[in-house]
């Protein structure tokens, strides 16, 4: 049975200027522990779709099921990581941020601090447990955000361009780290990006989306062995294939 089922989901934004289509008629199935990338130019509805799956937006039509249960609003079966570094709570230390979800569950302090510490170790931040977010670099803040989303053990991780605002070197390191984290935790991940190489490096499967209205254009399975070598011929082939799909959607702009 598939872990996530997205059935014919559409969303229309109601704005003062009129109706803006966000996504249109998207259907997808994901198996347990799959790493899926949503790829497309900016403005094509990737974030909209992710926010629908997260439960922050209600689709105008269509349905989403996770583990067989219909999604209705946000829930602790999903963890979310945004692009904005400001997603961390500035009034809490790194540990306090990671422990937040556990605190909401009512887990006693010692236990949740221990779990949070282990999560920070997973993202190699055990030395910065007591730091407040404004003392951490952008990459470190995003690692805290990942640890935070994992700490209360959701089965699905939703990530909206989490590394897009980082410099290229940090981004490469973060991608390797995320691949490791995924190998260890085996979460089902939906990862939004507009970066082709990132999609090929991380994904089991890439969904290419078209803008205006946001639709699924193509689906590409990346069948390369891990850890992947971005300089290999096969890797570049996959990139070319995705770029070709994107190019067709991009002709207008």
């Amino acid at each position, binding site marked *: 049975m598939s872990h996530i089922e997205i059935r014919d989901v559409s969303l229309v934004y109601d704005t003062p200027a009129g109706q803006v289509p966000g996504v249109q008629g998207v259907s997808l199935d994901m198996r347990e522990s799959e790493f899926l990338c949503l790829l497309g130019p900016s403005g094509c509805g990737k974030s909209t779709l992710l926010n629908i799956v997260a439960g922050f937006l209600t689709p105008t039509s269509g349905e989403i099921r996770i583990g067989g249960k219909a999604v209705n609003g946000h829930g602790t079966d999903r963890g*979310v990581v*945004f692009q904005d570094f400001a*997603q961390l709570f500035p*009034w809490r230390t790194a540990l306090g941020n990671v422990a937040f979800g556990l605190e*909401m569950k009512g887990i006693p302090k010692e236990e949740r601090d221990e779990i949070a510490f282990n999560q920070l170790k997973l993202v190699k931040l055990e030395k910065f447990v007591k730091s407040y977010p404004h003392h951490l670099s952008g990459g470190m803040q995003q690692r805290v955000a990942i640890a935070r989303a994992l700490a*209360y053990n959701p089965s699905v991780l939703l990530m909206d361009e989490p590394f897009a605002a980082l410099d290229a070197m940090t981004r490469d390191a973060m991608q390797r780290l995320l691949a490791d984290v995924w190998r260890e935790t085996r979460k089902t991940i939906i990862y939004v990006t507009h970066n082709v190489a990132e999609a090929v490096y991380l994904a089991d499967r890439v969904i290419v989306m078209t803008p205006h209205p946001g639709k699924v254009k193509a689906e590409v399975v990346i069948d390369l062995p891990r850890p992947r070598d971005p300089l290999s011929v096969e890797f570049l082939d996959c990139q070319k294939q995705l770029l070709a799909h994107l190019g067709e959607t991009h002709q207008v702009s």
Partner: protein
Amino acid sequence: MRDGVPAISAAGLPAPERWIGRGENARWRVIARTAFPFLVLAAIWEIVARLEVFPRRLFPTLEEVASAFVRLTLSGILPHHAFDTLVRLTAGFAIAAIAGVIIGILMGRFRRAEDIFLPLVSIAAPIPGLAYAPLFLLWFGLGNFPAILLVAFVSAFPVIFNTWTGVKAVKEIWVRSAQAMGADNPKLFRHVILPGALPYILTGLRLGLAQAWRVLVGVEMLAAVPWGLGWMIFGAREFLNTDVMLSGIVVIAMIGLALEKLVFEKLENYTVVRWGMMS
């Protein structure tokens, strides 16, 4: 934010932190540098007083002011006035802080509350607080009650406006993250909305307290309260006791400075500054 008037502590009156780790020498230099302008001012004052540009009674020498200050302090009169003023300030400001934060949060979180309060607050706020004083005196008589009520009324506006703005400015991304981690509404409020809006709320409280302080001195003159620094200064005018009036102003300056430095700087350093939400 924070009144737009920048915190002076960094470069003005030397904050204690800046002394730590420096030699005795540097410390004395800072003290001397800070004292110098006051000495110059005192010298000018003394010259004007002794030249009798104004009649001596109206422009006493510093020695006379100092002796009035000591006399009034030792006899307990000045402390009594100051105490009553502080009680009024605390009472009025406490009411304003509690009511203001609650109203501001309601306005920020609930559309309906915003619809009701915003027009009323926007109409009442632009009228300078003291202009309400005669109306309050007419309605509630002279004395303590209208004075405290007026201070509360006037200082509530900055608290309301800033709390409201702060709650609205809480980042959507924080709310979403917290919800994704399973925070229900009460928890969301306590762990996200309140700390997220805190920089604004503190600014509002600071502005409110400053406002309360400015209005209170005037109110005490108008409301004919038996004790209070404003009343002391005003009453001394009848007998041309300029030395008493100046002593009162010295105490007013000290209290005002203490409110700013001791109360709010501490509170801010402990919270929003530590969190990097305000530098």
